[in-house]
């Protein structure tokens, strides 16, 4: 096994999949010679040609729609949404087109599309370049939403996403791009729709995904020093959600803290909490806790941004609150 950057794992996967399957193409702003805003596709245009690695005009709704149409008719497009914040412009194509085609047109219709979304805060980019907008996709029946937390899973999940016959929103934390982790060379997949217990524990379950998995592990580490044992679950796929893995853990620990980088209201945490109370109410010893960003836009200034986005400290505090509560 080899250590590599999260961003490199994604690049490698895209390259491998493009080499493996001619039908895989890429669309996005500045992805060709320039290699994309985060340089994920650097060298792709030279290697695979500009027919398959296609720079688009600034037209997120349009090029997402183009990708959907291409997916319906035999290609397997991977779209790069330069910042997830811009997916707002493509929501009609995703909600009213991609997500509905199979249901309404029947089995003949498949939309093997991946929309890669660099997401999240932590870089002081301000209100329109720092959002975690997965809530809109998770709340739309017909979309698969994936959000890896490690380089290993980024590769395995992205392979699965590209090979999936449904539209997949693939969330890449911009902060995680710079993290390194063990990544096998060559082909392997991580299945979509399966959460993973990334740390075993007895006292409280922490549910996280994407960058918050890291913060949750950090919180668990800190709490272990105080003899509090946390089980950490990385959802990995947000939709369809693996409720069972979460429920199993909560039945054991009796407590749950859910964390995410997006704002509190209407977030993924609400859905997780609702499912947990529905499926393991009698096991709960304390009220489920949500740890999320403030119900505000993401401010640019570093001090404000840090105050807005949850961190290990707040997660640990929520665990302690949960333990004190009952």
């Amino acid at each position, binding site marked *: 096994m080899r250590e590599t950057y999260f961003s490199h794992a994604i690049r490698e996967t895209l390259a491998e999949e493009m080499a493996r399957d001619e039908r895989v193409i890429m669309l996005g702003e500045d992805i060709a010679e320039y290699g994309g805003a985060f340089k994920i596709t650097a060298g792709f245009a030279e290697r695979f040609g500009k027919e398959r690695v296609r720079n688009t005009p600034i*037209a997120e709704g349009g090029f997402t729609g183009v990708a959907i149409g291409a997916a319906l*008719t035999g290609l397997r497009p991977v779209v790069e949404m330069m910042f997830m914040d811009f997916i707002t412009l493509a929501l009609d194509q995703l909600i009213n087109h991609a997500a509905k085609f*199979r249901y309404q047109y029947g089995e003949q219709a498949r939309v093997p599309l991946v929309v890669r979304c660099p997401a999240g805060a932590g870089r002081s980019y301000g209100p329109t370049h720092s959002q975690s907008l997965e809530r809109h996709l998770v709340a739309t029946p017909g979309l698969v939403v994936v959000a890896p937390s490690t380089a290993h899973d980024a590769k395995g999940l992205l392979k699965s996403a590209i090979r999936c016959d449904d539209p997949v929103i693939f969330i890449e934390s911009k902060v995680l791009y710079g993290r390194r982790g063990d990544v096998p060379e060559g082909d392997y997949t991580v299945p979509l729709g399966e959460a993973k217990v990334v740390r075993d524990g007895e006292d409280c379950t922490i549910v996280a995904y994407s960058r918050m998995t890291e913060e949750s592990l950090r919180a668990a580490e800190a709490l272990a020093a105080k003899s509090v044992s946390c089980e950490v679950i990385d959802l990995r796929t947000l939709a369809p959600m693996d409720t069972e893995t979460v429920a199993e853990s909560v039945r054991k620990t009796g407590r749950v803290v859910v964390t995410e980088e997006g704002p509190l209201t209407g977030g993924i945490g609400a859905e997780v909490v609702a499912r947990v109370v529905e499926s393991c109410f009698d096991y709960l010893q304390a009220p489920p806790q949500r740890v999320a960003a403030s119900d505000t836009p993401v401010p640019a200034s570093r001090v404000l941004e840090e105050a807005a986005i949850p961190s290990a400290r707040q997660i640990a505090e929520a665990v302690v609150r949960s333990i004190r509560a009952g």
Partner: protein
Amino acid sequence: MKYDHDEIIEHYRLMLVIRRFEDVLDQLFGEGVIVGTSHFCAGQEACAVGAVAALRPSDLVSSNHRGHGHFLAKGGEPRRLMAELFGKATGYAGGRGGSQHMAEFSLGFLGTHGITGGMIPVATGAALSQKLLNTGNVVLCFFGDGATGSGAFHEAVNMGAIWELPIVYFCENNLYAMSMPVAEAFKVTSIAERAAAYGLPGVVVDGNDYFAVREATGEAAEHARSAHGPTLVEAHTYRHYGHSKSDDCGYRSAEEEAAWRARDPLKLMRERLIAEGSLTEAAAEALAQEAEQIIADAIEFARNSPDPDPETLCDGVFADFD
């Protein structure tokens, strides 16, 4: 005549079928037999049939909310179309989609859709597939004048243009988007003029004349097929009914309606074929009766079809997760 006689007669019959389909639908809605909504294309049959006539069978068509004619022209069976409008399991979308959300890929019909303008990017993507997969096929993308106001139109047509995709952008300019007259929605007098903003050829055609439509679309399709990129075809036409079943057309003058009815595409075609000696009055009458029969049969089929099973409600949201 440069076209095959039998084919022309067949296409005239198809136009009669479409007209009958829409006229009968209007009655069925009136009687409450059908619920939901529909947008009738009566008056615009020459666009649907004329444009599709210019294609190869393997070419693709994408449609909009006013799509019964497009679908029937591309080979859709009146029975299954009607069944869809009845909300029945035998309909093209199994009752799930209704008038605005049905497709049949085996016929190259990419679908009707309820979001105005929304299928223009999708059709453009289908054209990208044709290009990259080297199928030799072209895409014919139908939309209305109103749809050209949408950002989706602008973004998609621009991509079709810069990538020289094999697609024909076919605008049925029926003078109104719902109640909004073209002249109120746009300052330009012709929609084809907008093609220049994308570096594309734009052509205007009499949308009530099957032959003119077929000719113009044929040229645009060959242009696209030979890798010269899209054309924006603007066909002037008129819908006989209101926008949808609930519209009384208060915004149109009686004179305007009469003038367009005088240029009814079925009437024009019938007169021309009879004048040319390709059709007799009696043969025309027989075709009309055939059309009536086909639609009567479709209604019968739809009526006798089963409702979808509510147990299937949640099936097929995903391809890979059921």
